[in-house]
């Protein structure tokens, strides 16, 4: 740590000012605008009327029936739960694939590691839309997977892999896999492999070494990776639209539908706030686990 000069507080403050400015202007102000819009009345032709209203939030769980009674309406709750479910599934798939990959890279000699990391980042060079589109060519009818199977007679008809929840999960997991691998790798790389040797000397099985030494020590990376996959999956728009065929609304497409087609801005904003709430909850869980870990490590 470099020791700062006497007027360090002012300096720190000044040094942080650009960061605060960016966070304020590009994050807090837009979220505040969204929050305000979600509490206004919708203008039927798009935009809002400046009257306070909680209709948008009521609409998430209730609707007016033909006699104008408020009745419970599970449609939007179902959409929210489906989004959360698919995001968790994508996160699990990423973890199952990402952890072994990160572990494999860690076991390579240092000179090779950077090359593997470089390979992992290559997909980021191409636009996500194009990469997702390629999955249509891979999974689709007469696609890369089906054509050889059809030609060799393993299957007689299309497997219908496209436009399913499975295809959405594949798309999400593919899109965000590097975000899982990189933080886990960062954790594993710092892992002191003498601890593994010590465990081995103490007659731990390979499985025990993995579950009781390596995984707990790489937990910060695993949790960070899960957050980085789960959060963007929740609001994902491209994969559900292209690979799911738009047959079942997810949170991202629901927000888009409210702004672009249904012209109900407050409701779209309210759903976006719900989405934000799910993200904040995930981040709070993350922060708690990090704090707990800090305490445990402090005890050592």
């Amino acid at each position, binding site marked *: 740590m470099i020791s700062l000069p006497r007027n360090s507080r002012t300096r720190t403050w000044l040094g942080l000012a650009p960061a605060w400015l960016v966070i304020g202007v590009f994050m807090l102000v837009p979220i505040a605008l969204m929050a305000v819009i979600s509490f206004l009345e919708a203008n039927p032709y798009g935009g809002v009327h400046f009257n306070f209203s909680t209709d948008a939030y009521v609409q998430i769980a209730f609707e007016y029936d033909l006699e104008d009674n408020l009745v419970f309406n599970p449609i939007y709750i179902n959409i929210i739960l489906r989004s959360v479910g698919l995001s968790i599934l994508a996160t699990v798939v990423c973890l199952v694939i990402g952890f072994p990959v990160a572990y494999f890279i860690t076991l390579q000699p240092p000179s090779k590691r950077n090359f593997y990391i470089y390979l992992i980042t290559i997909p980021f060079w191409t636009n996500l839309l194009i990469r997702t589109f390629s999955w249509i060519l891979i999974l689709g009818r007469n696609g890369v997977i089906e054509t050889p199977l059809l030609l060799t007679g393993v299957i007689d008809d299309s497997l219908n892999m496209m436009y399913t929840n499975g295809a959405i999960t594949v798309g999400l997991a593919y899109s965000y896999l590097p975000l899982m691998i990189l933080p886990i790798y960062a954790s594993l790389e710092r892992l002191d492999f003498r601890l593994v040797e010590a465990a081995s000397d103490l007659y731990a099985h390979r499985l025990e070494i993995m579950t009781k030494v390596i995984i707990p020590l790489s937990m910060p990376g695993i949790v960070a990776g899960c957050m980085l996959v789960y959060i963007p999956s929740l609001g994902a728009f491209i994969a559900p639209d292209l690979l799911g065929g738009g047959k079942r609304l997810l949170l991202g497409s629901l927000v888009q539908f409210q702004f672009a*087609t249904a012209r109900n801005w407050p409701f779209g904003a309210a759903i976006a706030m719900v989405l934000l709430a799910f993200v904040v909850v995930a981040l709070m869980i993350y922060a708690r686990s990090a704090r707990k870990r800090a305490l445990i490590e402090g005890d050592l």
Partner: protein
Amino acid sequence: MMRKFGAPLVVVTLLVSGTAFAEGDLYIYNWSDYTAPDMVEKFETETGINVIIDTYDSNETALAKLQSGATGYDIVVPSQHFVEIMIKEDLLQKVAVHQMENFGNVDPRWTYPSWDPDQEYSAPWNWGSASFSYRADLYSGSGESLSEFFEPSEEVCGRLGVFEAPDEVINMANLYLGLPYCSEDPAEMTRIQELLVNQKPCVTTYSSEGLNDRLANEEVIISAHWNGYSKKGREAGADIVYAYPQEGIVGWYDSVVVPVGASNIENAKIFMNFMMDPENAAMQSNFSHYANAIMGSGPYLDESLSSAPELNVPADVPVIFGEACSPAAQKLIDRVWTKVLQ
């Protein structure tokens, strides 16, 4: 609603540089891939006005942009029902199109339309229709009825494409059930909802992009389609036929209008008049593959256009244009669509 060809998700700003005389600028805000570059060049050469083009991918986007007070556009090209909404919302200027020199070229069928009854605001651009297309080599039907689309037979089930947005789909359902557009009657909308919910198990995708791709690679054999877009698919080699069901097809009609806040109103008027000239209208059609409303443009049209079955509606098939729905009707449409896609 995205009927233009694979319109990119991101609005791209296209700068067409031209001969910049001192005649000023004209800022055009149009659908993406929908402004003929040779026509723009001709306009710039003839008038010395410098044209700058910006694009959008849906009527809703254009409306939102104008509502947010975006000034600086001199020309916008919305569809008929959005012209009506924009007039109602005081977003357009009266420019007395009916007094323009070339107004006499407009086919009487298209003059003084219901969305601009005095023709004060709008000049014709292109028009077309929405229906469904099928793979003639893979499908045994003949596209005679909307029942083939809404109540698909076994061969179509699982290989059926529907638009992503409700606008045209619900209008088509209205035509099929013989109901008026923009119904405010919950009972009628319940029938539409049942029709669409029952259709859903057979639907492969709800998407408005890549329609020709999916027809070409046999992912679907029937797909909701726009006429000019379908024509492009046929010309690319797939055996795609645009259906003219007896119940009718859904029409759309894009017009040139001048938004409030335009700074080059005189140039905008010159452009409107320019677009009602037969040769210029034909240049635009040749680029977009959609029909125009100008008499005498026929001789200037490419052969592939004047003979295209997609652009020549049989006389006995009604073309019913989409309307600006009331808030109550719009709410019912949104509810039905959310129920279908829940």
